[in-house]
Every structure is written in structure tokens, then in C-alpha cells.
């Protein structure tokens, strides 16, 4: 899925942010092109809607909840989603736009938890499924809500294994 950059500005001419240098608050966010939720951003200074207001923009399930005016759901735990590598099969484990872990094929299957660089487990005799599950379980235990995309991930690698 391709992304594009969108810029939002505070629409309130009386906003304190306008007193700074005339530019006001500028919010820059990268969003996927395809349509998803309706998103309304509010100025972090005055809480007024930002422009473009009311535009139907795209988000995806990995978009950090709580970032918007509350029109998106607000699950109790931060949600991690699986994403494909560019030009390749899965799997990157993402919090929004930030990769927090990955599974890849090296001399064996490799699961890396980026939050703990000392954790890089190689499973030369293990399965891809076990490696994906291991990484998922690590983040579940750390308090994240992690997509169970094991089957699509395994299917994505199928022709390479």
C-alpha cells in the first residue's frame, strides 16, 4: 500500500500558535492512500479542528489509537500489526509506522525483538510458524495487542521455503 504525506494546519485564527511566527501549528503525517476511517485532527494547542477538516482520509489498523479526536476506537492496549517487507513477503511487526520486531530467513528463521537488541533467536531447526509465534508471544507478554497473522505470514513465505 502506498502512502502520501498530508499536512494539516490549525483553522483557528485566534489560536495561540498563530502568535508564534504566523505559521501556527503544522501537523505532518504520512497516511496510506486507500480510504479507511474518517479522521479529524485537532490542534494540540487550542483543540480546534485542523484543516483540511472533515476530509475522509486513510488510516490502517496499525495507526496509533488516541492520535485523533477519538473517532477511532481506543483499545486498551497498543496494537501491533504485521506488515510485508518492501518487495518481499512478511513479516515486520509494526506499531503504526514504527517497526518493533521482525521475522526473517537467514541461515534459519530469525525472530528479533528490536526493543531488546540482545534478543535475536535463530531457529535453524524450527519452523516459520514457531518463530512468528515466539515473537508474537513476546510482545503479548509485554502488554501489546498483537495481530495473529500467523497463517498469512506462513502462506506468504510458502513459495520460498
Amino acid at each position, binding site marked *: 500500500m502506498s502512502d502520501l504525506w498530508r499536512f494539516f494546519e490549525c483553522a483557528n485564527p485566534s489560536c495561540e500558535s498563530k502568535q*508564534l511566527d504566523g505559521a501556527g*501549528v503544522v*501537523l505532518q503525517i504520512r497516511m496510506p492512500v486507500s480510504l479507511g476511517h474518517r479522521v479529524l485532527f485537532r490542534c494540540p*494547542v487550542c483543540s480546534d479542528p485542523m484543516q483540511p477538516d472533515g476530509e475522509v482520509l486513510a488510516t490502517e489498523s496499525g*495507526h496509533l489509537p488516541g*492520535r485523533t479526536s477519538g473517532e477511532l476506537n481506543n483499545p486498551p492496549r*497498543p496494537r501491533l500489526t504485521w506488515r510485508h517487507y518492501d518487495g518481499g513477503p512478511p513479516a515486520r511487526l509494526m506499531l503504526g509506522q514504527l517497526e518493533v520486531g521482525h521475522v526473517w530467513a537467514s541461515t534459519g528463521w530469525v525472530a528479533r525483538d528490536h526493543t531488546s537488541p540482545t534478543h535475536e533467536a535463530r531457529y535453524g531447526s524450527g519452523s516459520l510458524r514457531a518463530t512468528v509465534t515466539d515473537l508474537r508471544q513476546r510482545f503479548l507478554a509485554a502488554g501489546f495487542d498483537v495481530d495473529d497473522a500467523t497463517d498469512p505470514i506462513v502462506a506468504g513465505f510458502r513459495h520460498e521455503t
Partner: protein
Amino acid sequence: MSDAVPLAKPRLAWIKRDGWYLMHGDVIFAMVKASHADVTHVHDWTGLLELRMPKSFADAARHLRSQFIAAGFDVDDVPEEITGGEG
């Protein structure tokens, strides 16, 4: 295999470098950094979101903290070194 039951929310800590960084383990999630004049930059890598804020450095840090708390994280209090003891 059943999912593990989390005992706590993921915790974010404030780490001082060239600015103040919100980190989970060794991964940087967000940053607050003072710029010229009274402008504070907030950068959130989870959403690739950048803000130029006229708020004070402390207010910007508190804003960032509230955003991540709303997103389900357990975020350390803004350090007194940032707030200057103003709470």
C-alpha cells in the same frame, strides 16, 4: 497455544540525549526537542507525526505523554528536569 496474559501495559521511559526521548526498551518511540525561539519540536515515530509547538518544552512533553497514555501505554511521569519542578 493460548495468548499470554499481560500483567501491565507497555512502559515508556524518558531518556535524555540531545532532547528527551520516549523509549520502550531500546526502541525510540517519540522525542521532544527544543528548537529556536520558543518552538518545541515533537516527533512521534509510531505515526511519523511531527509538531511544531509554541508550548513550553514541559507542556510539549506532557502533551506527548498524554497522547501515549491515551494509546494504551504506561508512561513515566515527565521528569522534574523537564518541568523545572512546576509539576
